[in-house]
């Protein structure tokens, strides 16, 4: 804090002939903030860099560090990606994952919008307890549920079907979205709804014409978050889906692309890169919504 206030006057001009104070605060700032920060960024990003560079390396370079600098590619190739797209069922996996993610996102948005509206705006006796119950559902981890859920899925005849995933993913999406949306609904002035009530609007008209349009940022946050979480989900998809064509990308890469003892690192990393791209792209478009929903849901 002190160095921030001290630096701006002298530091950028006086760097050639540093007087001790300015040099001290500047060096301190570099040492205390920029150096650790760049270490963090380097370490947090390195696996992605490594993933990306591996997927464009020809096999000869991939497994020979003596003659080729492993941190760079001398002759980049699209062979791994071509192999992935044309020799494996990768496009099908992508389609299935997209279908599951979009389906479960819409289902959970629908359910949680109504639930959040009922809890926050229709206010009935026990509504805080319903809210708390939904919140507690968020604390039940999938690792406890997947075995009994597998038997439930079999009972319903949904085993090995993407529908099973669409129905199961809301168990962790609905609690999250409901709490996010409760927060958003809270921020919308109640007077607006009262005005509409006085003008003779029905409850559903109020929800559709006043509350929802005002809660659009919240809906977007909940939507992109649900999409990301269902795209990334692993354990249910692993336990409930058996046939190759119905697998989601994360499961398929791990179970279908790893064959035998020789790992095809190029193809594996290309698969990981392609599987990460949709969420990364989505993320780059909506960064602010991500941050706000992450922090909003935690604070609530």
């Amino acid at each position, binding site marked *: *804090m*002190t160095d*921030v206030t001290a630096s701006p006057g002298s530091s950028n001009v006086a760097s050639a002939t540093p007087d001790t104070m300015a040099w001290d605060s500047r060096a301190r700032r570099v040492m205390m903030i920029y150096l650790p*920060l760049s270490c*963090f*960024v380097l*370490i*947090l*990003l390195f*696996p992605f860099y*490594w*993933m990306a560079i591996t997927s464009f390396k020809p096999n000869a370079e991939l497994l020979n*560090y003596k003659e080729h600098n492993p941190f760079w590619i001398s002759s980049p190739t699209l062979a791994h990606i071509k192999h992935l797209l044309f020799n494996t069922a990768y496009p099908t996996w992508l389609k299935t994952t997209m279908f599951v993610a979009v389906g479960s996102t819409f*289902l959970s948005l629908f*359910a949680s919008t109504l*639930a959040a509206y*009922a*809890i926050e705006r*229709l206010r*009935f006796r026990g509504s805080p307890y*319903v809210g708390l119950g939904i919140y507690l*559902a968020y604390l039940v981890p999938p*690792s*406890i*549920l*997947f*075995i009994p*859920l*597998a*038997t*439930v899925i079999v009972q319903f005849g949904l085993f090995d079907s993407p529908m099973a995933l669409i*129905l199961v993913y809301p*168990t962790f999406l*609905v609690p999250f979205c409901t709490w996010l949306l409760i*927060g958003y609904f*809270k921020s919308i002035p109640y007077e607006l709804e009262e005005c509409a009530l006085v003008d003779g609007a*029905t*409850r*559903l008209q109020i929800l559709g014409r006043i509350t929802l349009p005002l809660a659009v940022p919240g809906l977007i946050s909940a939507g992109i978050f649900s999409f990301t979480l269902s795209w*990334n989900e*692993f354990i249910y998809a*692993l*336990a409930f889906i058996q046939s190759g064509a119905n697998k989601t*990308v*994360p499961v398929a*890469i*791990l179970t279908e692309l790893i064959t035998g003892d020789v790992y095809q*690192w190029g193809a594996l*990393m290309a698969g*990981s890169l392609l599987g*990460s791209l949709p969420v*990364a792209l989505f*993320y*780059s478009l909506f*960064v602010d919504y991500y*941050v706000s929903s*992450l*922090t909003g849901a*935690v*604070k609530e």
Partner: protein
Amino acid sequence: MSVTTLNSRGVAIRQPGYIARLLDYKPFLIVMCLAPAIGLLAVFLTYPLGLGIWLAFTDTTIGQKGIFIGLENFQYLLKDPLWWNAVFYSIFYTAVATFGKFALGFWLALLLNNHFPLKSLLRAIVLLPWIVPTVLSALAFWWIYDPQFSIISYLLVDVLHVRDSNVDFLGTPWPARFSLIAANIWRGIPFVAISLLAGLQTISPSLYEAAMLDGATAWQRFRYITFPMMMPILAIVMTFSIIFTFTDFQLVYAITRGGPVNSTHLLATLAFQRGIAGGELGEGAAIAVSMIPFLVFATLFSYFGLARRKWQQGEAND
């Protein structure tokens, strides 16, 4: 319901009015609004949770309905060294990874709380490990930990010359355990850092000004202002982090599948191996259920241990 129908006979000329009025009838509307969410959660969360506890007391296998066998599954587990091993590693993994995540994540949050150019870009980049599917980044870690072509080994052996031989990351128990923990910390830092950053930004600067006027050092400002003010959010984030680290599955399943010689099994991966892959649903469910006491304890500990004070921020200011 029938009463409303009877009453509406008299004015049944306007059909839409009747539906609209039913939808305006508050109890009906409340039930309608809550039905989808509660229904989904009841069928796919509450019911399986109960079913799981029931399964843990039966000898169900895949394709065969089991009978009630009491505590037999648990008695078997208590004598099973693999289960004890998984308990030990789950606790160890959670403790070390949580400590690492919070130490580094808090540090990163404090760093990001400063002013510098490209701040929002940096904040966006930092969250990336958390956004990308865990299994896919775990694969990247698997490749980084490769016994022969590990880039870390290359750096240590051929560039820095601090070692003579490649590091055996995943081939022996203890290195494998720590490698997994490192991957988990890497993945967990962004979540912790960004949530804590949000908490840091709610602390009023006037508190720091007052402390500085009183001559408090940087450490004192952290210890007596930042830390206590962060307690509530720290408690919540830590509760979440502990629950989801303890029940972690993806990282271990993707990188080691519990090996070498079952040394890196977490309870979740052991439950999967026995329950789904091995077909012993009853035993798998028992392992999963055995996580519950640990989870309850950890939750109570982190929540009440850290959030002894009431929430400083009111509910409204978010």
